[in-house]
């Protein structure tokens, strides 16, 4: 039945990866439910999950390959819909989604229980002093008066003459006088314990704070890789300071490595007001730039596909280590690894699919990410780029070159994804951000790349690193100018409160609907033109063109949709 087949193909175009979205959504909802349901349910959830898994594997007959990755198009499903096995297949699918949701719930439930029953959690607010042994778990944040906010992973707690082995996180502000603290450092300190009011149910932001710490002893990380990355970061800061004025040096370290320790407060504020904060955090764009440059060099040296994928994955992992695995870096790295794996196995990059799977896998590995604003923003912006970007670029008025259309579409899509999340979280919308980003994003690419060049050479060839910093200087100066201008605009940012915080989400939804209508009209017009040409062609060649697919494939301008999907650029 030809009509049915063509309809199935068309339906696939509507949203090529509904199952990926459904799977990521199932895991996310599972995580939220696991936290909401509480600790006692973890066991019940586990039992239910085991039963479900058995059901999933049994239902639906023989497994027809499991494309976890890649954009391999599903077979047109018309035949299956019309005939055999719809019920069983749908059942297996539903069970699979339920299994993912339950896995999320089980992981989140266990995490919540661990936070809830922690030694320090129990001691918080009771007064008294504890002595802890801990490792610095995240890159320390600068706070006022030269102190550093540090997240510790606590291994051992001594209190009231007893020792407890544990595995929990605690925040502490190390005062300026205590010296530098690096990720992986092992500390022994005594302090008071109090509950944190800025925590989340899974302790991503620690549930307890160590108050007024007294550092008894400290030692550097045992991991040679971590120590090396710390050396590289310090060397980049040193090179940048040697080659650039202090504010641009801080900006370079922020843009290239997410290292904001040198960033002056006024510049930071200007970037925030201009909606450019994401530039001084490492994001998917950084990972993309690093990959493109690294793999470009590898291709020039003659590397072939499987080797390229391995190199790419190695590069991504090293970069994530160097930039301290911030949530946005985790998201971007996971996506990049999945996309590279897809390329290596010949399935194509499949950006949307990679995003869905990255969210799914990262949330199951660390459900606390669901409460990280950086992770939410990163996922929302990427989803905006992948789902809304192409339409946004397409409906731009006027005659524009394709490069400009796609670049603008990517920026607009990212903003459309991030704005609602930002507005809900902070109640602030940067109106200047849209324009500032359009200008700043292309400008930031060069410092991203040059900063990584500086990082690669800072310890082995300092003059090269200095040169890279100098080359980045004009771009950095331009970025500072853009941020200052945008921040100085009247009504650069708008403050929303109460239900008004939902306004950006509503506006984005409205714009999306309008853009889709416009795109649909453009498509119809294009289809009409194609039909007219086709009629002309068939008349002149005497081909009756019974099969619409054959006809389309033979058209010089009409790319088959499958090919089009695999050539979509990775953000």
């Amino acid at each position, binding site marked *: 039945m030809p009509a049915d087949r063509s309809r199935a193909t068309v339906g696939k175009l509507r949203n090529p990866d509904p199952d990926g979205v459904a799977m990521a959504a199932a895991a996310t909802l599972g995580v939220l439910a696991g936290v909401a349901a509480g600790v006692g349910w973890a066991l019940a959830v586990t039992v239910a999950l085991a039963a479900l898994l058995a059901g*999933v594997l049994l239902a639906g007959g023989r497994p027809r390959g499991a*494309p976890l990755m890649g954009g391999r198009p599903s077979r047109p499903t018309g035949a299956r819909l019309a005939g055999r096995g719809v019920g069983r297949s749908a059942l297996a699918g539903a069970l*699979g989604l339920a299994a993912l949701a339950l896995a999320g719930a*089980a992981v989140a439930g266990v995490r919540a229980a661990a936070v809830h029953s922690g030694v320090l959690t129990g001691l918080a607010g009771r007064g*008294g002093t504890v002595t802890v042994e801990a490792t610095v778990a995240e890159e320390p944040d600068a706070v006022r008066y030269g102190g550093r906010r540090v997240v510790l992973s606590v291994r051992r707690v001594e209190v*009231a003459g007893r020792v407890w082995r544990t595995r929990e996180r605690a925040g502490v502000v190390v005062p300026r006088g205590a010296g530098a603290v690096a990720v992986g450092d092992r500390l022994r300190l005594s302090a008071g314990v109090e509950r944190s009011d800025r925590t989340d149910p899974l302790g991503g932001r620690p549930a307890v704070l160590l108050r007024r710490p007294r550092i008894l002893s400290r030692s550097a990380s045992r991991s040679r890789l971590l120590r090396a990355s710390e050396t590289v970061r310090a060397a980049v800061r040193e090179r940048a300071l040697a080659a650039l004025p202090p504010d641009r040096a801080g900006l370079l370290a922020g843009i290239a490595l997410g290292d904001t320790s040198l960033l002056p407060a006024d510049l930071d504020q200007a970037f925030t007001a201009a909606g450019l904060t994401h530039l001084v955090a490492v994001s998917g764009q950084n990972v993309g730039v690093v990959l493109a440059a690294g793999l470009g060099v590898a291709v020039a040296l003659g590397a072939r596909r499987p080797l390229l994928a391995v190199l790419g994955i190695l590069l991504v992992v090293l970069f994530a280590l160097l930039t301290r695995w911030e949530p946005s870096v985790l998201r971007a790295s996971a996506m990049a690894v999945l996309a590279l794996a897809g390329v290596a196995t010949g399935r194509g990059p499949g950006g949307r699919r990679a995003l869905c799977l990255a969210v799914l896998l990262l949330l199951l590995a660390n459900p606390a990410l669901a409460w990280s604003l950086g992770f939410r923003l990163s996922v929302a912006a990427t989803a905006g780029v992948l789902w809304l970007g*192409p339409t946004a670029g397409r409906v731009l008025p006027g005659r524009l070159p394709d490069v400009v259309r796609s670049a603008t579409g990517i920026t607009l899509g990212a903003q459309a994804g991030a704005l609602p999340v930002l507005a809900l979280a902070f109640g602030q919308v940067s109106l200047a951000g849209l324009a500032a980003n359009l200008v700043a994003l292309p400008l930031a690419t060069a410092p991203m790349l040059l900063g990584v060049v500086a990082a690669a050479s800072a310890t082995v060839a300092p003059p090269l690193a200095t040169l890279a910093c100098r080359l980045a200087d004009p771009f950095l100066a331009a970025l500072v100018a853009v941020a200052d201008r945008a921040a100085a605009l009247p009504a650069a940012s708008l403050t929303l409160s109460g239900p008004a915080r939902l306004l950006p989400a509503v506006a984005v939804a409205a714009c999306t609907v309008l853009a889709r209508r416009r795109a649909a009209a453009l498509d119809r017009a294009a289809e009409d033109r194609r039909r007219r040409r086709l009629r002309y062609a068939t008349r002149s060649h005497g081909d009756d063109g019974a099969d619409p697919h054959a006809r389309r494939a033979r058209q010089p301008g009409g790319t088959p949709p499958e090919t089009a999907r695999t050539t979509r650029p990775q953000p």
Partner: protein
Amino acid sequence: MPSSPSPFVLGSDGWRARVERLLDGVARQRVAIALVAVLALAAAGVLWLNARPHAAGPAPAAAAGGGGGQPLPRVAAGGGDQGGAGAAAGRGQGAGTAGTALIAVDVVGQVRRPGLVELPPGSRVLDAIEAAGGAVPGAELEAVNLARRVVDGEQIRVPRHGEPAAAAGGAPDPGAGGQGSGSGTGQPGGTGQPGALLDLNTATVEQLDTLPGVGEVTANQIVAYRSSHPFTSVDDLRQVPGIGDRRFELLKGLVTVSGAR
């Protein structure tokens, strides 16, 4: 890319077909899903085993100090099902133990039976002297503050009439006599300081004011802190606002904590 058709605009099949297609897509990946779910479960299991706090024996310092008999902090029960429920029990537990443990004081000088006496916590110097048989005639009781609360391990010296009172008293060694107080860390030194140690839980603002580096403001801070969190160890002094590392080092040999547990 803009030349490719937009993914959203074409086609219009019913929601049933769409849902079925979605579930079909999921079903084709069920092996991978099962694998991921099993891995997630295994990770959760490992986390559960690792994250549950477990006691690893007494702290070395506290064991040496003879504090091994301390009741466990209430957190011990929190490892099970209802975690932080024990947080409130701390205060009551402190009061309960305080009633049973006696403190030892050495009373010397002009008393009928000089030597070690055992007193309930919170006793005054007068109680100590009476427990030592009372002062003999000719004792200079005005040189001794009879109202002061005594501290475990302290020596009270009752001078003869005309004898200078400044020679009185030897500070207890807080390391040995700390009654297992606190985490057992950072309690060295302090020996050889003249005069009795000041009990942080009972000292008045005026008494605290006499400590080096402590003015009225800090003394009030200490009193305010202990009204919400009674001191359990000298280390807790570090938690009082305004007392930094330097002042803490100065003070820790001069103060003690008794009767808090």
